[in-house]
């Protein structure tokens, strides 16, 4: 069974750095895309970026370009979403989701990582 398991809840202060993870089980990591989605409190879903794990293809939403870094360690089937300097406005739930190469739908999704940034 394909499954994505995300790292746990984070509480940080403005200006701090953060790296959250998304580990994949049950499939060959390199044949898939991984996407990161933000959901701010009470709001809808927003694509942050997607990465093809078979090569270096990495696509950010213009809204998130330069604000976050998406990466992956294929040796441990894990993708990451990273901030160098958090803001209060980064408070949100973050989901990873996967799509097999050649398809355009994302399934399954991780359980979500809640991030709170507050002084």
């Amino acid at each position, binding site marked *: 069974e394909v499954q994505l398991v995300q790292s746990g809840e984070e509480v940080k202060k403005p200006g701090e750095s953060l790296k959250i993870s998304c580990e994949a089980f049950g499939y060959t990591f390199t044949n898939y895309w991984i*996407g990161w989605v933000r959901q701010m409190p009470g709001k809808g*879903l927003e694509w942050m*970026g997607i990465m093809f794990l078979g090569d270096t293809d990495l*696509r950010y939403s213009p809204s998130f370009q330069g604000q976050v870094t998406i990466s992956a360690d294929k040796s441990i089937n894990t993708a990451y979403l990273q901030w160098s300097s958090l803001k209060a406005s980064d408070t949100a739930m973050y989901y990873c989701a996967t799509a097999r190469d050649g*398809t355009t*739908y994302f399934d*399954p*999704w*991780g359980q979500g990582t809640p991030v709170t940034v507050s002084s």
Partner: protein
Amino acid sequence: QSALTQPASVSGSPGQSITISCTGTSSDVGGFNSVSWYQQHPGKAPKLMIYDVSYRPSGVSNRFSGSKSGNTASLTISGLQTGDEAEYYCNSYTTSSTPNYVFGTGTKVTVL
């Protein structure tokens, strides 16, 4: 890239059918058969309900169906049940902007 347009809310009584629309442009919904629909219950991760406009993943009830006409895709839920009360989002491949996918604004389905 602006979000695809969905009605903010749709409601129906148990057993009824409801339809949620998802309107985009020829660069996304209208240009590709790459519309998917996700159900999200409060506090839960989104779940894929329909892919490639009208296909149901294994395990999804056949009460859920999808279609598309021009730049508008639709999700129909027939035989509405209390467990269908959730937020629903459409998603489409797009050539307008990276990362080449765009979500809809989301629709809250209420079972009266």
